[in-house]
């Protein structure tokens, strides 16, 4: 390949963490004005590689050439100035600042003297950026008050606003629903037209095949394959990623609904949703579908006692129960995988082991005393079942890759063998191989007579797994669809009805 046909080249990049070789002599060439997908299992090293590019880690081996020039970063600022920007997998925003302040952070328009911020100009720039991506958000809202999808859109807006030559997107779509993904595709197409190289990391292969021009597959820190998208198919890619052939992603299931286990009657919470009623049967997988902000997360939080509902009733096994706290919910046999693993999911500074057993310590303790042996056995089982990749179950969970963190949250919910499993974006950031495992597990649980209520923005997942789909729009149920009616198009149509 000729020199000017390569904006960025990685040569033999290696990086180790204590106990883990995260990257092992990775060499990749990126061409201008292309979308280059980087895929691989959870923990393959994708995010680490991108953080090196971005100047977050400076202690790596190997070379990075930007337009033929060797890049020696001293930090993030240099990377930004060299024309590289990034959307991080774990969103990086200042929660108590507004959307506008976050968007312009680090490059506010300011006077020369005293660096006084020009508020009017800042406002103008913000509005321009939001318009550019068609994001309808009040610039003065605080980031912490947005939902995950909205935050992700803000981060996307921010990353493309640097006018960088290279935009790295580390799972930008992981909590976006169909509608926003479309918008993202549009944005990426525009970038490509402007000659920008997009490095796109995603576990959603259909997206990769739609958007990307080239793909590089990583496994265990090594490049195991690279190709033009036009010359390869999904099965090959999956085989490269997981190192084996994968049969059906979605398990075959026969629907055998048992008695009603959870009923919701006219449930409502001010400002989030209202008059929501449905039944959940044993052995059933039901999805809550809707656009961003439709109220799915809020319903699940109320069911699990994380928020209070101010209207309606919840019945478990036909009996009305007050659910005032997660402890109540757990006692009633509910389990939760929350949408946001950073805030409600994990305790980052504790070990993987402690995180998995946190809500079910009674399973491995005698009275108040924890049995380490039993705990280890339980944890090893879950780690095996979900293929969680970690050098040791005592590794700090914050050091795991994003997908493996998500699996840890799932492991915790499953460990208690709940009768009703509430899953909010359960496969967020999880690789295809592991997704298949999780779907298999969901199938098995349903088969065992458990009930699953899932909220997911990934329509294929909703369509592929659900026995029934409850479609929400603006906090109200618009339609309940049975399996045979639940096509992607039908769901979307009802989600946008209003």
């Amino acid at each position, binding site marked *: 390949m000729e020199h000017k046909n390569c904006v960025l080249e990685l040569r033999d990049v290696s990086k180790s963490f204590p106990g883990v070789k995260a990257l092992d002599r990775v060499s990749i060439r990126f061409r201008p004005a292309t979308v280059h997908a980087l895929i691989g299992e959870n923990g393959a090293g994708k995010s680490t590689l991108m953080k090196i590019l*971005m100047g*977050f880690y400076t202690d790596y081996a190997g070379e990075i050439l930007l337009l033929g020039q060797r890049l020696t970063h001293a*930090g*993030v*600022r240099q990377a*930004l*100035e060299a024309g590289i920007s*990034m959307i*991080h997998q774990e969103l*990086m*925003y*200042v*929660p*108590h*600042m*507004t959307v506008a*302040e*976050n968007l312009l*952070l*680090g*490059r*506010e328009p*300011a006077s020369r003297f*005293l*660096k*006084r*911020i020009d*508020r*009017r100009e800042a*406002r103008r720039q913000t509005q321009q950026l939001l318009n550019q991506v068609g994001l309808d958000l009040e610039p*003065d*809202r*605080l980031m912490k008050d947005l939902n995950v999808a909205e935050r992700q859109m803000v981060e996307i807006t921010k990353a493309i606003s640097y006018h960088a030559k290279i935009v790295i997107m580390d799972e930008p779509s992981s909590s976006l629903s169909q509608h926003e993904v479309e918008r993202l595709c549009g944005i990426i197409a525009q970038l490509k037209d402007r000659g920008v190289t997009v490095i796109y990391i995603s576990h959603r292969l259909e997206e990769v095949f739609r958007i990307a021009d080239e793909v590089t597959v990583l496994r265990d820190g090594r490049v195991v394959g690279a190709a033009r998208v036009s010359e390869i198919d999904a099965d090959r890619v999956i085989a490269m990623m997981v190192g084996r052939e994968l049969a059906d992603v979605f398990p075959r299931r026969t629907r055998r609904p048992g008695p009603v286990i959870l009923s919701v009657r006219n449930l409502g919470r001010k400002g989030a949703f209202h008059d929501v009623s449905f039944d959940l049967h044993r052995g059933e997988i039901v999805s809550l579908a809707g656009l961003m902000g439709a109220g799915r997360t809020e319903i699940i939080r109320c069911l699990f006692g994380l928020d209070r509902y101010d209207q309606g009733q919840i019945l478990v096994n036909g009996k009305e129960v007050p659910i005032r706290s997660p402890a109540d919910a757990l006692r009633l046999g509910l389990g939760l995988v929350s949408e946001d693993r950073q805030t409600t999911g994990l305790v980052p500074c504790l070990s993987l082991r402690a995180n998995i057993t946190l809500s079910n310590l009674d399973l491995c303790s005698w009275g108040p005393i924890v049995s380490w042996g039993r705990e280890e056995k339980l944890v090893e089982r879950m780690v095996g079942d979900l293929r969680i990749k970690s050098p040791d179950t005592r590794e700090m969970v914050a050091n795991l890759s994003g997908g493996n963190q998500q699996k840890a949250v799932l492991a915790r919910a499953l460990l208690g063998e709940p009768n009703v499993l509430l899953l909010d974006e359960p496969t967020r950031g999880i690789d295809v191989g592991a997704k298949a495992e999780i779907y298999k597990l969901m199938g098995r649980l349903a088969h065992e007579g458990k009930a699953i209520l899932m909220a997911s923005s990934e329509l294929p997942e909703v369509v592929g797994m659900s026995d029934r789909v409850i479609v929400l729009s603006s906090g109200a149920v618009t339609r309940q669809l049975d399996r045979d009616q639940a096509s992607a198009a039908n769901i979307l149509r009802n989600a946008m009805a209003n």
Partner: protein
Amino acid sequence: MPEHNIVPRDGNAMQKYGLVIAFAAICAVLSIRSPAFLTPQNAINVLRQISINAILAVGVTYVILTGGIDLSLGSVVAVTGVLAATFAHPDTYPLAVPIAVGILGGVLIGVLNGLVITRFRVAPFIATLGMMTIARGGALILSGGRPVSNLAASFNFIGNGSVLRIPIPILILAGVFLVSRFILRRTTFGRYVYAVGGNEEAARASGINTHGIKVASYAICAGLAGLAGIVQASRITTGQPNAGISYELDAIAAVVIGGTSLSGGIGSVTGTLLGALLIGTLNNGLDLLNVSSYYQQVVKGLIIIGAVILDRRKRSR
């Protein structure tokens, strides 16, 4: 309303509503119980008395906003007071010298704090606790354990003089407050202080020199402590090596009462000033009512907790 968006981060009047109510209630009770309380004379008195604590509190607001803490303040007041005093004997140096020496001494200590915290990744609590004993030792060594007295009248004027009938310490406080309010609300530096405290990783990912911001915050904080040290030395007309013991706690208390979060990223100097006023008014009022000093402590503790409860209630209504 371009002036005020819904930014509880650096707080508008609404946010301090609860605190203002608590403050008003205290003033009401005090003025009923003691006729001497609600006089212009006494208002000046209270302001003058809080000036040192409030200057320190405004300074440590920067540090706390970045998510740090500074426990060395009290010792910095002592060492800079001693330093300034040694250059303030009559007919030796012009007034600018002791002032410069005191403030620069503070800034230097702050830079050291900041470097230990950022370069060597020592927790701010430990770094500044270490500095607290080092600076105290320094003050004692410099002064030989004795007050440095016999200071020039011009120097003593700083703490005891008035301009247009307003005591100079109050004017200094007003300047420090207004400038800091401007810096924190209007400049990019201020914005970065909030960002570093709100989410350091995110600030770094936005290309902000987070280490630089922190070092600067510690430097400003200790520099203002140096200023406070000068005011204090001048007010008591001596450089006192054992001055300022536990001033840091009072200053931090004012900051936290004022609604600034110790985990960083949320708060304002306006809140800090209100917090310092609340403490100062309480001290003054309880003295005026001649409450026995044992009971004073109990009452003071209860009122501070009560005011904060009221404040948090109001805010989360």
